[in-house]
Each structure stands twice: as C-alpha cells, then as structure tokens.
C-alpha cells in the first residue's frame, strides 16, 4: 500500500526521573503527491515526528508505515530512507563533504548507483535548486540559504518519493526562505514528489494543500489551509497567528465583503478582489 500511515503512534523519552511524552496517539495518512504542512510551536513534537518517519526514532507505541513497510524492521530501513528523505533545520550540521558536488553525490553513492548515474543525478539536483555554478565550491563558503539549497539538492538526488523538511527555513533570511519554498512548490507540482513541510511559521505553509496542527504532542487541528486558518480563535488559543492573507480575508468578511473560497495563490485573490 502506497503512502505514509501513522497508526496510533506515541513517543516517550526517558528523562532522569520520569517519562516525557513527545507525541501521543497520532493517526494520519499521507498519500503520494500531496503537499502537507505540519504546523506547531516549539516542543509540540514536530521534530520527533520527522525522525519517526524515517526510522531515526522508533515509536514507543503504534506503527509507522511507509509504503506498507514498518520503520521498526531494521532490514527495511535502507529502503525506507531511500523512499523518504529528510532536510534538517541547521544547514551547517547536515553537510558532510568538503565539496558541494560530493555532498550531493553522497546519498546516491550510498545507494550503490553507478558513477555515471550518480553524475547525472548530481547535475539534475543542482539544476533544480539553481546552484550549478557552485558545483566545486566548499560548503563553508556558501551563505545560509545556499547551504540549505545544497542540503535540499543532496536529498533530492536520492530521488525520494516523500520529502520531509524539518524547519528548513528557520535559519534563513527572508529572500532565501522564499526561494526554498518556491523550489518546494515546483518539486511538488512538476516532479510530483510528496512534500511534508514542518514549520512553526504559518506563512511557510501557504502552499500546503492540507495542514496538520500539532500541539503538545497531539493533533490539534486538521484540514485545508482555509479551514485551519479560518478558525482564528482556535489557532490563537495555542499562540499561532494565521498568515496575513487569511487575516485580510477575515477582516474583509467582517466588513461585509464575501470572498469565494477557491483561490490558491495571492495573485488569484488579488484578481478576485480587484474584480469586485
């Protein structure tokens, strides 16, 4: 069965004298080709969730299934990690090799691909993130945004079906942040890769088609961006603010303007407002 399934997943960490519950009874299914946003403040269990998905952590209770494979079985871990790539928050700590090109070749090489195939994938991944001219640079000479793009490319080069991004923009300046998000949208639409974007910033998740809001280790809200961001009261109760776009819609509606639901991007909304 294709897709990601979490069945009643809980994760507890042992601390000095007690157990700390990071996630409790999480259930959800993600289908191939979706663009999912996972929203939550710090300590809501977001990063634990990411690490559960590719078997870096094992659930205390419940099962995590990737295309039907359980992350609990060590034999299938390599296959699972090939299917599901993760980009981590800190670009500096996930680049392994001293040259950009080698960094991107690292994953495909571990999959045992032939050098010519590796070479092809390196060029392809560099092209997607627009970093061809940095091919022979050393990672420490790149800016934060460029480093994160290299990290993204290095996961892309493994051609995963699912791409999980754990706070990929938290250490980036606004411009690089927009660029990375734009790349993700393209990868989802043109390469049909499933994107699971984890963030504490609702603005980051504007492109997601479905949102899962985590709070204190359990699912707090779920639905389309319109449904989730429309409920400002419920979001506000856990300290999250909807993106400016949705606040604008809310205010317009309070003033008596009706906005149709089916817009997906800011330009579409602008178009709609201007027509009125």
């Amino acid at each position: 069965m294709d897709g990601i399934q979490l069945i009643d997943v809980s994760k507890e960490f042992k601390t000095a004298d007690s157990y700390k519950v990071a996630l409790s009874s999480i259930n959800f299914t993600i289908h191939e080709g979706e663009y999912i946003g996972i929203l939550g403040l710090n300590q809501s269990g977001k990063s634990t969730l990411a690490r559960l998905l590719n078997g870096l952590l094992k659930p205390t209770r419940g099962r995590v299934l990737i295309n039907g494979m359980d992350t609990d079985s060590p034999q299938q871990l390599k296959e699972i990690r090939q299917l599901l790539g993760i980009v981590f928050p800190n670009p500096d700590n996930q680049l392994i090799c001293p040259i950009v090109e080698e960094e991107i070749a690292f994953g495909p090489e571990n999959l045992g691909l032939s050098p010519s195939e590796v070479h092809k994938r390196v060029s392809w991944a560099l092209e997607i993130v627009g970093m061809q001219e940095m091919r022979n640079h050393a990672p420490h000479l790149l800016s934060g945004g460029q480093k994160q793009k290299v990290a993204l490319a290095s996961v892309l080069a493994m051609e995963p079906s699912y791409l999980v991004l754990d706070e990929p923009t938290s250490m980036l300046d606004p411009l690089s942040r927009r660029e990375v998000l734009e790349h993700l949208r393209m990868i989802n639409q043109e390469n049909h890769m499933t994107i699971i974007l984890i963030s504490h910033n609702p603005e980051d998740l504007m492109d997601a088609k479905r949102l899962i809001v985590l709070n204190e280790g359990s699912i707090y809200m779920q639905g389309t961006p319109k449904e989730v961001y429309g409920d400002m009261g419920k979001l506000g109760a856990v300290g999250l603010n909807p993106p400016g776009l949705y606040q604008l819609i809310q205010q317009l509606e309070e003033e008596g303007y009706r906005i149709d639901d089916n817009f997906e991007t800011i330009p579409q909304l602008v178009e709609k407002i201007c027509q009125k």
Partner: protein
Amino acid sequence: MNDIKLGQYVHGNSLIHSLDPRTKIICCTFIVIGILSSHNFWYLLAFLGLILVAIKYSGTPLSSIWRSMRGIRYLLLITFLFQAVLTQGEAVFQVGALSVTREGVVIGLINLLRLVILFLGSILLLMTTTPMKLSAGLEFLLLPLNKIKIPVQYFTTIISIAFRFIPTLVEESLSIKDAQRSRGARFDSPKILSNLKSYLAILIPLLASSMLRAEDLAEAMDSRCYGGNPNQYRMRTLKYDRVDIYLIIFMAIVLLAGLLI
C-alpha cells in the same frame, strides 16, 4: 588558529600541481624509503637539490616555505647538536666536558638533511595537492587493505569530515572568543595562568557544540543511507598520464641508486 596555514594548498597550474595525487604519494613514499635507508651524505645532498628543483618548478613561493622551515628550526638544531656531541669518535674540539666528534658532525649533518628533505617533501605534497585529491589518492592506494579487514573508507570519511568542519569550527571559535571578550574576558593578559583560563572558556563551549554537531551529522548521514562504502565518486577524478608513469620510474631509479650506493 592562524598557524593552520602551514602546508595549506596553494592553487597553481604547474606540472607538479597537475600530477595525479597517487603519483605524488608514491614518490613521497620513495623519498622516505630512499633517504632513511641511505647513509651517503652526497646522495642526500643530491636529493635535497632534486626537491628544491621540484619546489622551484611548482611555483610555490620560496618565502612561505622558508617561513614554515623556521617552525622546525629548534628540532633541527637539537638533532644536530645531540648527534654531534653524543657520538663516539675523533674529537674535533672540546666544550667543557663535551667533545664534538668528527663522526658526530657527519651523522648530525646526515640526520639534519633527512629531516629537511622529509619536511620539504611533505610540504610540497600538501601545498600542491587539494585535500580532496589527496584523500582520493590515499583511499585508492590503501583500498587493497580492505581485503585484510582494515576499513580504509572509514578513515577517509573521517578525514573528509575533518576537512569539511575545520573552517566551521575555526569560525565558531572566533565567535565564542568575541562573545567572551565582549563580557570582559582577556586573551592578552601577561599572566600565563589567566590566559590559559580564558582559552579554556573557549574550548569547553566549542567542545560542547561539536558534540551537538556530531549528533546532527550522524542523523543526516544515517538519513542518507550511509553504510561505509568506498568513495567511488571522488576517485573517479583520478587519472594517470604518461608524465606520472615517467616520474614514478625516475623516482624508482633514484631510490634504487640510493640503495646501491
């Protein structure tokens, strides 16, 4: 931290630069064997000349090599003095109870030459080869050791991670130093002990953050299916030319000559 430049790669387009790293490593091995097995002063002197020609040819600035030589001047001096004084033989002159012998001076000079040649040879290797080419060459040459269960590729991965993180750690140590300084720490105190304490205050946060980095890095490597395979992609850049073969043959002859003399 500024001394890290010793033996650092200097970009260039000379013949020495374009040699295959494997050739350079093999030649360096020949040099080591040659000079350690020969006791002939003139042979060693000829060897020194050969290396100086190679340095001149590589376009490496002689001034920077001279500067790095100064780093080992005490080692050279002590080696020479001890050999000169402690070797039994015909005394040349006497300083108090110590006598400098003729044999001692000769052996001292030979060992001095050996050290200088070793030093210059390795400096030349490091200054004309990028770290990555060097590690690709090493990995290729040592890979047969895999057969006797020595995991060569692990060592080269360690080396390559070190190369990746040296600049990052240097940067971090500078920012920790700035942070400490902005809170009044002194790094130029005339008292050695308080200076030492200040540097300890850099070392401990640096160590702590390295641990965190290591954990993150391990997760990233794990996520990308790292299983300790040889780095074929890097070794793909290795290419033997005719010059490489000529050079290896030449060095082998030089080595053989040394063994026969």
